Every structure is written in structure tokens, then in C-alpha cells.
């Protein structure tokens, strides 16, 4: 028991260290400053046309649906966009990519990375399947990265913590960036 506890603490420490190193790194990122970027929406109510990434009827590739989304400020806009993804597609026989019952608990933006924290339904209600999971993860990532130039990375959290995968296959332990090739059903 004691050994198990020590091991657990060790694992937790290593995870914390990795996380801290990553945050530190992000903090020290140089280059683009938020003010110079187009699409900086801090503090302003905004209505935007966004490309929402859903799946095609055969579950082979991502497929775009345009929708107008309004948010009170930048973070709120990101949260609304995620809500629209969770609401699902409305036209063209497209398939949803995320379980209907999923809710986003918080959406947080800092230094080019959006952190989206979902409730357990995103994992527990997901049907499974490797490619279905790829499309689920990258519908979120592509939508946020492709629509907002200030977003470089998306970190998915489940119930507030980093997870290795969403449904047992795709690595979501770190921040992810968009994969537009998924529109043609390819990884790259």
C-alpha cells in the first residue's frame, strides 16, 4: 500500500512537472503578440461567421458547416463556438462528432492556447472507434484554430484534468493543432 502511494505521488509529481514546464514554455513564447493579431476580440461583443467542423455522412472526413455565432468577449465567443459544435450539424446529412449530452464546463484562453474542459459525457457517451475519435478531437481543434488566428493550440480537458485519450485511442495528453487534411479524410 505504502509503495503504491509512493508510486502514485511520483507519477503525480512527474505529471505536475511536465505541466509546469509546458506552462512556463508557453509563457515565454516570443513572436506574435496578441495586440498585433487580427481577430483580437478581447472585451468586445462580437458576431462572427465561423466554419464548424462536423463529419461527413460516412464518418470518413471532416465537413464544414457555416454558422453565425455571437459572444460577449473572446473567451465567450470560443465557448459559444464549442456549444455550437456540441449542438451538432443541421444540414447536408452531416454527422455530429461529439456526444449529444456533452457539456463544456469551461473555456479558457491564454497565450495562443484554448483550454476546453468537457464533462465526463464526452468520454462516457462517445460511441468509440478510432476514426470516430479522430474526427471528434479534430472537430474541436480545427474549429478553434482555423477560425481564430490568435489560437495556435487547443488543450482538451475532461472533468478538469488532462487525459491520455478521449475514447481509448487518440492521444490528447498535450496541446493539439489543426489538421485541415482531415477534410479529405487523410491525416496528412
Amino acid at each position, binding site marked *: 500500500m505504502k509503495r503504491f502511494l509512493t*508510486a502514485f505521488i511520483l507519477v503525480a509529481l*512527474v505529471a505536475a*512537472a*511536465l505541466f*509546469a*514546464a*509546458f506552462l*512556463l*514554455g*508557453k509563457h*515565454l*513564447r*516570443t513572436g506574435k503578440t496578441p495586440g498585433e493579431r487580427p481577430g483580437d476580440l478581447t472585451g468586445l461583443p462580437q458576431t462572427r461567421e465561423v466554419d464548424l467542423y462536423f*463529419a461527413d*455522412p*460516412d*464518418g*470518413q472526413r471532416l465537413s464544414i458547416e457555416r454558422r453565425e455565432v455571437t459572444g460577449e468577449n473572446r473567451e465567450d465567443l470560443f465557448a459559444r463556438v464549442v456549444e455550437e459544435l456540441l449542438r451538432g450539424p443541421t444540414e447536408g446529412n452531416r*454527422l*455530429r*462528432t461529439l456526444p449529444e449530452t456533452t457539456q463544456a464546463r469551461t473555456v479558457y484562453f491564454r497565450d495562443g492556447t484554448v483550454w476546453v474542459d468537457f464533462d465526463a459525457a464526452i468520454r462516457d457517451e462517445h*460511441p*468509440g*472507434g*478510432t*476514426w*470516430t475519435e*479522430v474526427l471528434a478531437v479534430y472537430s474541436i481543434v480545427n474549429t478553434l484554430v482555423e477560425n481564430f488566428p490568435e489560437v495556435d*493550440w487547443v488543450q482538451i480537458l475532461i472533468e478538469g484534468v488532462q487525459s*491520455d*485519450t478521449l475514447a*481509448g*485511442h*487518440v*492521444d490528447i*495528453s*498535450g*496541446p*493539439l*493543432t489543426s489538421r485541415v487534411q482531415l477534410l479529405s479524410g*487523410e*491525416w*496528412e
Partner: protein
Amino acid sequence: MNRTLIRKAGILAIIPILVFLGAFLASAEASGVLIRNGNPGGKILGSLDLQPSGMIDLASIMDLFKLRASMDLMGDRMDVVGQSGSCRLLAGSPLVLSRGLFALLSAPVRFSGAGLSVPLDFLTKGLPGLTGRFMEMDAANSILTVGNPGTGVFSGEKAEGLTRLASFIQRDQYVPEKILNPAPKGLSVVVLDPGHGGRSIGAKGSSGTTEKALVLSVAEKLRRRLEESLGIKVILTRTADYFVGLKERTAIANNNNADLFISIHANAAFRREVDGIETYYLSLGSGDARAMEYARVENEALGLKGGPEDEALLEAILWDMAQTSFISQSRDAAALIQESLVAGLKGNDRGVRQAPLAVLMGARMPAVLAEIGFISNPEQEIKLNRESYQEEVARALYNAIEQYHRGLLRGEIQGGRP
């Protein structure tokens, strides 16, 4: 003038003959290494047996040089500790890590039931840092000369801090096969990984079929065929309905020096009509964010000190990178499996795909994931539930593995392990 030239040429001509003769004699005697103290008239300290493969049992080195070792939780890496330092060995990897420095051995370290074995050059690359003694290998006579205490350091790449390892990784030189160039050899150990298990149920069919139960049944049928017809050793990452972590699965394959890792899964989609077969291998650049982060921190001259945090980060990157050097063999294996499943099951071909799959990342051997069919499709679910259909799936997978095995033997597929 002319005469000296001729004499020089003559001497030059003799050198290769001497080298050849020396090498011949050395190979004839290479059954052990004599360990000798470096002091004048130095006495013999002992000897180490050389295995036919050219490897040495680590336990015998530890006895002789009074080293200690501890295995980590996952069981696929080992920390070796000596009087003046420690190093980390990874199953199936030629890297020796020591405080952010590394040495590249001539062959991967092998873990097996009997213990751990290391290639000969571990004596001169890893041992000095552990013992604090200089080591010199007289390869022709198989004599290792041991220096006085305080003369040895870890003989990694002459790096300061972690810089060299990071740039080494970025240049994509972590390619053991290129260094090893092994002779053609078929499969001897295959690890089958029935997906999910325990609390991880996986996909569920509408009439209650669970992915975890289905894939275990297929894996067991495949194991039987491989053992009976191909006579190779088969290891399952789980043999009943219990939870196994994703990293643990690859660690099992790494520990057992597997030549091929096949993860078996059943598919699902949001629409029940979707059906077909897919086979995956790892996409390159998985774990990019971490590697970029590492390089960036380094570039900004923050200076990685080789502390525990840096080492943890480094290990995470190495874990991400483990599969990169086997990508082309993994692609070959995936193509054979996909083709065989589609033909054998007359299924809809959804293609060979790359994806950032967590279960394949840490594998230090060719590794693929097969999605044998959609249990979210009610018709498919009924089929997949039938024992006879599961036998067909197992037979199709068997055929692909057999083809891969023959391809290795004929040298048409490069790689496998030395």
C-alpha cells in the same frame, strides 16, 4: 625515390591483411572478455561471458563492478547505479541516458525473462560513468582494461547539458536500424493487444456486444493459429476482462522484445449504417508540441540543467519518438493486414490510415492497430458475434502476419530486430 614508394606501397598492402587476420583471430576467440586492472602488472579482475549474439548479461557486469539496479513500475526501463553515477536503460533501445547525456550503443538493450543484456560497447560507453573508472577495450584480444578510480566519466556524446540530445532528436537521427543493419530474420515474438478491458468497455453494439469481449476472443483465436501454424511465440497484453493502461501494453511488447505489435479493435460510428475495415499505423509528429516546447526552451537559452523535470520531459519525448524509427515497417504491416482483412471478410475497404494513436507511440517495434469491423452497425454486430466469423477474422489476420514473416525472411521487408 621509386624504391621508397614501392616499399611504402608494400607496407600499405600488408596492413589490410593484418587487420583481416586480427579480426579473424578475434572472432575465433570472442566467447568472453577478460577484465584487467590498468596498473602496471595489473591483475586479472575477472571475465565476462559473451553471448553468441555478441551481447553480455548485465547481471554479470553488475556482479563484477558492484552495481545496483532497479526496474521502474512499467518494467521496460532500468536504472543502473554505481559508485560514481547512474544511468537509465530502455528495453529495445540503443540509448543509454545519464543526467541528460546519452550514449548510443551498437545494438538495442534487450530485456528477457533471464534478465537484461547489453552490447559489448556498454563496457566503454556506460560503465565509466557508473564506476568512475576509465575503460579501454582491446577488441582484438577481448581485454577490457580498467583505470583507477576518478578517471572515468560517462562517455556520451560530448555534450554539455541536454543540448546535444535535443538537436539529435530534431535531426531525426534516432534510427536504430540504420545503425544496426540487421540480417534478414523472421518473426519470433508477436504481441497481440486486445483493445480496452475492465472499466474500458470500448464500443458497444445495439444488442449488447462489447468491443472488449469481442477483440479478446479474436486475439485468442489468432494466438492459437500463430502458435500452431507458424510456431512463433505469442503474448497477449491481457488474457481476460481487466483494465490495462495504454503505455503498459507497449511496455509488455518492449519487455518481451516483440518483433511485431498488433492492437485489435472493433469500430463504431455515430451512424449505424457505417461499416467497413480500417488498419492504422502511427502518424509522424505525434507529440510534436512537447518536442517543440523542448527545443524552444533550449533555444531561449534558459538552459536545461539536466534536473529531474528535464529528464521527465526528455523521457516523454523519447516515448513519443519510440515508434518513429519503425514507421516504414509499420506501414508495410498495416497494408498487409488491411488487404488480408478486406479480402478474407469481403469487407468495405476504408483504407490504411495514420493517426496519433496513444497505444502505438511507445512501441519499439513495428506496430499497427486493426479495426476489424463496426459493432455499431447491427448487421455487422450479428456477424462479429458468430464464432465462425471470428475465426475468419483470425485467419485473415494470420495470413497477413504470415506474409509479413515471409517478407522479412526474404529481405523484402527491412528490419525486425537484430
